[in-house]
Each structure stands twice: as C-alpha cells, then as structure tokens.
C-alpha cells in the first residue's frame, strides 16, 4: 500500500512539474520561435541582476515568462458584476483542471521496477512493477475524451457567466467548434482502436514497438497516416489556437469567452492553453509516434530492423524512455507553434464547413477503410 502510494506521489509530482514547466517554457518558445521564423530577434530584454553587482543574467530572454507571470499575479483581480458569480469562478477551473487531468492516463515511460532501480529498496517493494502512468486505467483513451469534453463546459461557463456579449459569442463559438472537432477527433482515433484492439494507452504504446514493412517502426502514423493528420488538425482546433481561434479572435471578440477575466484568472486560461499544447503533443506522440519508446524499442531493449537485439539495463531503459517522451513532446509542441504562426484564421462558416464537410467525411472514410482492412486481414 505505502509502496503504491510512494510511487503515485512521485509520478504526480513529476507530471505536475513537467506540465507546468512546459506551460511556462512554451510561452517563451512561442515568442522566440515566432521571432526566428520571421527574421526577428524576439523578446530579450528581461533580466535578473545579481544583487550588489551590475551583472545581468539575460539567458536569451527566458525571464520574460517570469516577468509576465509576476505581472499577472500582482495585477488587480478585476471582477465584473457577473450575472452568475459561482459560474464565473468555476469557469476558470473547469477550463484548467481537465487539461491537467488528461495527463493522468498518458504513459510517460515504460514499466518501472523500483526494486531493480534501487537495490536497497528491493525488499520493501517486493518485486512489484508499475507502469509509468499516474492512473493505469484500461479505459485510458476514453478518459482522455471524457476530460476534454469537460473543458468545453469551462469555456461555455466562462463566456456565459461573464454577462458580456463578446464573451457570450465566444462561448457559443467555443461550444459549437469544440463539439464539432471532438467528433472528428473521436472518429479518427476509432481507426487506431480497431488496429490496436485496445484503449489502454500502455498497450497502444507497447504495440508500436515492433517493426512494419521490414524497416519502419510500427508507429501509428505509418498505419494511419490520414488519421494522424486529421487528429492533429482536430486537436489544434480543440485547443482553440490559430487557425482555429475563432472563440477568442482578438479582432472580432476582444478575447472571446475570457474577455471579462483579469489578472491570474486570465493567466489560467493562457496557461491552460499552453499546457494543452503539451498535452496534445503527448497524446499525438503516444497514439501515433510510438509514445515513450525509441523506434524499435521495448521495455527490454532495442530490436533493430535486421533482427539484432541490443539489451539495455533497466535504469538505462527508464531514463531513455522518459527522455524520449520529453523530446517527442517538445518537438510536437514546436510543430504546433509552427502551425500557429503560419496559417491565417478561418472564417466562421469556413471553420464549421471544414469540420463537417471535409474532416468528418474523411474521418469516416478512413474508419471504414481501416475496418474493412482489419476485417480482411484477421
């Protein structure tokens, strides 16, 4: 019992640290990447001065995020005389918490055997092993969709309770957009479920550690290339970022459903958006890019395409898996930022037409073809 608890606490601390760090770092990455993409230098003026000296630590402007966070924390928390105070206060949390909770079912590493990792604790753990996942639930993928459904409620609550026309319009847009794109997301993932035969995230990752067509790693993106593209599109739309940022379009709705939120409450919406970038990246990596494993890798070691097997010690496997996962997530975050700074915003009718007339039929076709193929091959 205590053993399980200790492992859970370590996992939760790790997950919180990783997510919040990603949330903070991504604000800086977004600025710098946007600047570099457009031949600029980017934010580089914030510094920390070492006391009693004139030595300033700038570190490529990494402290701008800190300065912004401090500003948001210290600003006046201006509250409108909201129509519904309870919903107004709940809205922030209903938008922020589900995003964090999704990470509970995403495996960020393979099976951990603390007894083998720390021989002095072997007796206490008694040979128990733990998948590196906060909540090892069989219904993993379903939980993901359940929680992203809750974040819709957050956006709609925030917009409705603000008692502001712009917020209400933003909430309406958020509601219809998120529901449309969640449908697409669910249908694309169904194809994967058919192939892997499971919704357990760990099983999905383990099934991707083999080889397909001789050379390629057996990643979901090679089985389901269409689904990968559709999933990424729908996921960016779920996150309400450009080119799908209609619910918070500045030029039309000020900031959409969180117009009336100020100080750290507004910061929470921003943080939720940035954490969700990391969550989407983690989901995409888990479903389509082999999760925490290097190509051709499993919990025992590497099996190269030629059939050569390289055994790795347990410690090396754990470290490799954790680092691989972080690197994959970071690269995918960077890709999402690339998309955000490349594409222009949709018009509202285009947005819904894109979901219902283009993505949804494609997702259905993809699902049907996958189902027929799976049925024919088994």
């Amino acid at each position, binding site marked *: 019992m205590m053993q399980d608890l200790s492992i859970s606490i370590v996992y939760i601390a790790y997950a919180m640290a990783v997510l919040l760090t990603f949330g903070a770092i991504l604000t800086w990455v977004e600025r710098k990447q946007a600047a570099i993409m457009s*031949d600029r230098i980017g934010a580089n003026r914030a510094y920390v001065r070492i006391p009693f000296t004139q030595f300033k630590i700038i570190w490529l402007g990494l402290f701008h995020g800190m300065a912004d966070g401090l500003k948001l924390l210290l600003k006046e928390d201006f509250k409108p005389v909201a129509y519904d105070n309870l919903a107004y206060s709940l809205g922030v949390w209903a938008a922020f918490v589900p995003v964090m909770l999704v990470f509970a079912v995403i495996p960020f590493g393979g099976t951990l055997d603390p007894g083998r990792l720390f021989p002095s604790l072997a007796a206490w753990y008694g040979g128990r092993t733990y998948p590196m996942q906060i909540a090892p639930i069989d219904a993993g993928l379903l939980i993901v969709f359940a929680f992203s459904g809750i974040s819709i409620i957050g956006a709609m609550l925030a917009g409705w309770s603000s008692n502001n026309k712009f917020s209400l319009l933003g909430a309406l847009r958020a509601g219809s957009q998120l529901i449309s794109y969640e449908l697409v997301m669910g249908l694309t993932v169904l194809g994967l479920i058919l192939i892997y035969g499971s919704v357990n995230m760990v099983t999905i990752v383990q099934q991707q550690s083999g080889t397909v067509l001789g050379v390629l790693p057996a990643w979901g993106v090679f089985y389901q290339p269409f689904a990968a593209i559709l999933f990424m599109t729908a996921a960016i739309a779920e996150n309400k970022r450009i080119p799908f940022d209609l619910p918070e379009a500045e030029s039309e709705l000020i900031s959409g459903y969180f117009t009336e939120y100020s100080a750290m409450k507004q910061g929470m919406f921003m943080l939720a958006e940035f954490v969700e970038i990391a969550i989407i990246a983690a989901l995409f990596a888990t479903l389509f890019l082999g999760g925490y494993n290097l190509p051709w890798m499993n919990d025992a070691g590497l099996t190269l395409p030629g059939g050569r097997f390289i055994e790795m010690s347990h410690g090396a496997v754990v470290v490799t898996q954790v680092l691989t996962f972080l690197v994959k997530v970071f690269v995918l975050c960077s890709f999402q930022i690339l*998309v955000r700074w490349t594409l222009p915003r949709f018009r509202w009718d285009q947005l819904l037409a894109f979901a219902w007339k283009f993505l949804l039929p494609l997702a259905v076709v993809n699902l049907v073809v996958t189902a027929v193929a799976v049925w024919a091959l088994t």
Partner: protein
Amino acid sequence: MSSRKPYVRPKYWNEPEMGWYEKAYLFEVVRGLAITGGVFMRNMAKWMTGRKGALTSYYPEETRPDYAIHNRGKHILTQRPDGRPQCVACNMCATVCPAQVIEIDAAFDPDDPTHPKYPSRFEIDYSRCVFCGLCVEACPEDAIRMVKETPDFPGVDRDRMWAAREELLNWQPAKDVAKPYPVAGGTPAGGAR
C-alpha cells in the same frame, strides 16, 4: 415558417479561382509550413553557429550598418587646439532651431582676449530635437556639427534626454580635416574652463 431568404455571400469581381489543389487545402498548408519551417531552420542554423539570424538589430547597443556616412546623428561641439570649445556663444543655432531645443548660457573669459565669450552652459534637449541640421548650417564658427552616431537613446525619462556641454565636447576624432585638433587622450592645454 419564416419568409427570410437565406444569406448568399456576394461574389466579388476578383473572387479567387481555386483549383482542386488549392481547395484540398492540405497541400497548400504543407507548402506554407515548408516555407516558414525553412526560414526557421535557416535562421536557427545561423544562430547556432554564432551568426546573426535576424534582420532586426539590437537598439541602441548595435549600430545599423546601413547608416549613411553623412547621417545627421548626435551633435558635437568642436574644440580649439588647446581643448577649449570653438563655440563663441553667439546663440545663432539656438535662434534658428525650429524645435527650440538648444539652450546656451554665455560667459566671459578674460584669459582669452581673442575669444572672450564662451558657453558656460550648452544643452540640447534630444526629446524634442528633429535632427534637421539647421544649427550646423547656422553656426559661423564651425563649432557645432552632427556626427554619424545616434545620441544616447533611449532614456527612462524626458529629463534624462538632455545632452550637456561636457557630453557634447567628448568628440575626439583621430584627425579633423577642418582644423588642428587636440590630441586624443592627452589633457588639453587650457581646457580647464
């Protein structure tokens, strides 16, 4: 049943003609991502190898390389061979200045009978200066000039954007084509005043 007609988006005279390639959207998205990603990679490679991957420059630390040689930047006061200011405090530059940013206090120097009048205070308010160069044109003594470098912007406060006499007298050229100049670094002979 409502009798309202459904909204029909107007057709514009320059409505873009899109083929299936553009309408599929995905191909054009990939092309756009390739362009921006390529720019990112190119600039990032420059930054990683210690070169500058941006078109913008650090201001004010970095001087843009494309300033004209005769750029009208900050003002300087020229000096006599002994290091005293060339200025005779005639106030012509202050009079001609369209922004009225030059303030001069004249003083009397009995030690220099040929140039008894000199500026005890010569200040320029750079928060209002328009860099027209009329002061340089008006000066009968070639005492005020404008050099290529920009003044020490930015300031935290408008009051800090005044350039004082000592700052203006800092100019130490290696060689002045117009007249002999005090040796750079050496103490000027009579520059005490």
